[in-house]
């Protein structure tokens, strides 16, 4: 599973990255968490608000910081 955190490096993006990592840990998933900060790639995903969470190439969350619990529910499907 590949998880991408889209955002220009602001505080909220870091928070989302942290929450995602703890969700991954809590679920014991084998997932790679990558931060994407390049604006052209971010826009390429069609999102208009950062931070965003992309799971295996699909945007699942944008414009807000979700709690680890909520991210957990997203990751379980």
């Amino acid at each position, binding site marked *: 599973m590949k998880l991408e955190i889209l955002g220009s490096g602001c505080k*909220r993006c870091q928070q989302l990255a942290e929450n995602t990592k703890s969700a991954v840990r809590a679920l014991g998933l084998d997932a790679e968490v990558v931060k994407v900060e390049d604006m052209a790639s971010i*826009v390429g995903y069609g*999102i208009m608000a950062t931070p965003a969470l992309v799971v295996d190439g699909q945007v699942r969350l944008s*414009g807000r910081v979700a709690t680890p619990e909520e991210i957990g529910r997203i990751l379980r499907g």
Partner: protein
Amino acid sequence: MSLPVLDAPPAGTGAGAVPAGPELGTAGGAGRGSWRRPAVGLALAALAWLGLYVGIAPFARWLTQGLLGLDGHGHAGAAVQFFVFETPKVVLLLVGVVYVIGIIRTYFTPERTRAMLAGRRETVGNVLASVLGIVTPFCSCSAVPLFIGFVESGVPLGVTFSFLIAAPMINEVAVVLLFGLVGPAVTALYVGTGLTIAIVSGWVIGRLHLERHVESWVYSVKVGAAAPSVRLTFDDRMRAGAGAVREIVGKVWPYIVAGIAVGAWIHGYVPERALAGILGRGAWWAVPAAVAIGVPMYSNAAGIIPIVQALLGKGAALGSVLAFMMAVTALSFPEMVILRKVLRPPLLAAFVGIVAVGIILVGYLFNALL
């Protein structure tokens, strides 16, 4: 009636408390029952909120005059009573409003706003964009993807600017603080003139045809298809509201407390009309000076409005004060730096200049009228 519903609204403690899981699983047809429990919880929370709100004034009087034995009309008494009354009042107002706005905003995603604005004629588009700028969630850190998303999908440049001007200027923190500390009339003036500035400035930028000063990479970048919107249950929306409270109130409360403390000091110790000379309406340079001072104080509306309120009480002119607050919220250095990625200097300068002129005109207008 069972009590557990009580833990529904302040869900800041995490998602675990509310058994939302099963409902989410059947999201599509979650059906009728799903709104009832949250509605009861919300009603109870609203009641508790109201009870607290009504209790603040007697509590402040009791604390100042009863417990501390201060005279409510003396210097120290007036300052302390102001502080212990205004601080909980404003924070409570902020929690309530940010929570409700946080829920409302889940209905207005940037994607939906873009779809409403794409291909709109100017004028109507400027008005609509400014109004949507108030309700659409916006953070200056995502100004660039938003700008590109708008421009690439055919939202005219001027309409895009109307949105970018209104969104930070008319934000919930500024509006709540103005309403709670200064009053409904000034809040209405602020929102009304703020909207006018956003509409007119965006329209002027559109008329100037500055599209060639948008960085060229904006037009060459390949924008992906809009992300599919995730279906939200009402529980999700309430959780978003609680998240907004945690994020926004958690960030601004120290500024509010500090601002009200300074305001309380001014309130108690600065003599009436002391500022009429320097900040009064007689001084022609007061308005541009207010704008010049306001620009570097970005994102600190929370700390500044309580001080502004106290200054108003000591003879500062309303026009100068309005101009100052608008400069604080609408024009900020970090946002200019972020927008520089997509705007060439002439367009950035036009944006800043036009908005600044608009704010100065509003300042003079109200200094002359009132």
